[in-house]
């Protein structure tokens, strides 16, 4: 049985370590905040200029001056601080964020990521994604294993325009978890319940090694 979105978010949350500063992308990565393991404290960075992002506000308490990078209203914590976009991306580019969890359209077996542009469709822009994958120490991508059409998304080479080259360290899909290393390539390290290696192979273009725990 493949993982749900919440399952994938929960699995991604296991990558968090106590004291981490983390940036969560839009979509499934945002759900990771709901699955932070007990006893672990992480600080969420929002690239529009905030450290220490709190939960969504209660109804009627939204503040137009307090939004996340997805433009959703959020709240602050006692530990929060605000800064400019230049300072925020200096923080990101300078390698101060330990972990970024992002969505993806395609991942290649060398760690290339494509998640911002589909040629021929209206392009909304890369926002901060290129900065995050280039600057953050460890990049975890969470995405469905295949397209709606059934076409694989873990590929030999990305066919979509890239967000970054060789940047993905870990890929979590609804079928399993894959480590990606610059020399090692892709290694399947976990399978969702009842998912078989054969199924993953059938739905994957990239070559991968097996080290399922």
């Amino acid at each position, binding site marked *: 049985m493949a993982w749900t979105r919440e399952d994938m978010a929960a699995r991604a949350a296991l990558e968090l370590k106590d004291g981490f500063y983390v940036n969560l992308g839009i979509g499934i990565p945002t759900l990771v905040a709901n699955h932070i393991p007990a006893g672990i404290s992480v600080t969420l960075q929002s690239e529009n200029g905030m450290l220490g992002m709190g939960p969504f506000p209660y109804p009627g308490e*939204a503040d137009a001056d307090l939004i996340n990078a997805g433009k959703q209203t959020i709240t602050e914590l006692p530990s929060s601080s605000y800064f400019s976009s230049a300072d925020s991306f200096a923080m990101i580019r300078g390698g101060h964020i330990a972990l970024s969890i992002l969505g993806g359209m395609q991942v290649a077996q060398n760690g290339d990521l494509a998640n911002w542009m589909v040629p021929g469709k209206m392009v909304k*822009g*890369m926002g901060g994604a290129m900065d995050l994958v280039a600057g953050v120490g460890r990049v975890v991508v969470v995405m469905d294993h295949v397209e709606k059409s059934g076409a694989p998304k873990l590929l030999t080479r990305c066919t979509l325009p890239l967000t970054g080259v060789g940047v993905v360290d870990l890929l979590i899909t609804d079928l399993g978890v894959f480590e990606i290393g610059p020399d090692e390539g892709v290694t399947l390290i976990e399978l969702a319940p009842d998912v078989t290696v054969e199924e993953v192979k059938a739905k994957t273009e990239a070559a991968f090694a097996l080290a399922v725990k």
Partner: protein
Amino acid sequence: MLRKIRDGAAEALSGLLFDGMTVMSGGFGLCGTPETLIAAIKAAGVRELTVISNNCGIDGASLGLLLEGGQIRKMISSYVGENKLFEQLYLSGTLELEFNPQGTLAERIRAGGAGIPAFFTRTGVGTLVAEGKELRDFDGQTYVMERALTADLAIVKAWKGDAEGNLIYRKTARNFNPMMATAGKVTVAEVEELVEVGALDKDGIHTPGIFVDRIIQGGPYEKRIERVTTRPRPEREAA
């Protein structure tokens, strides 16, 4: 002393606008955008603008107003979703668009204000963004050279400001405003509250007055929210 305070947005922009000019506009989405000054630029009808702003507002609000008037020729942005009119104008070839990664955009503007003509960054190496740009290795890593951005006019929105042009921003409404204030040949600021000189915390001023040429009391502020997102109150509280 030269007075920086102007009586309203039209007066603040008087003599500064011309067709074909480059305008930087602070804000992230609708958060921290100089609404009052944008409305005045719309009213002034100046055209063929190159606008540097992280986003282009939404239909009917913020920079979306300048799109409606056909005043923008080119946008330099990192993200332009949430705007149907933008899409139409772009697909019809009426509107030129240059995407920058958000951090590269912020740093290019910071560099423009800081006398740094160019810098190197890892962001975008190996992607469309680096095409045609100089690549260079430092300590075994490849970087792309990015150039500084400046503008004929920067418009910024702050929370509080004084007659010297000292500004303080509020929460995530700060975003691109501080860098843009440094990178305009002329910078005009609008504030929610004009305060007495000396009322702002001297250790907490985000934009020192040297960067601000003119300042107005802005508003009335609509402060629209793009995505009001809430969570339910815990039941015991709601009960």
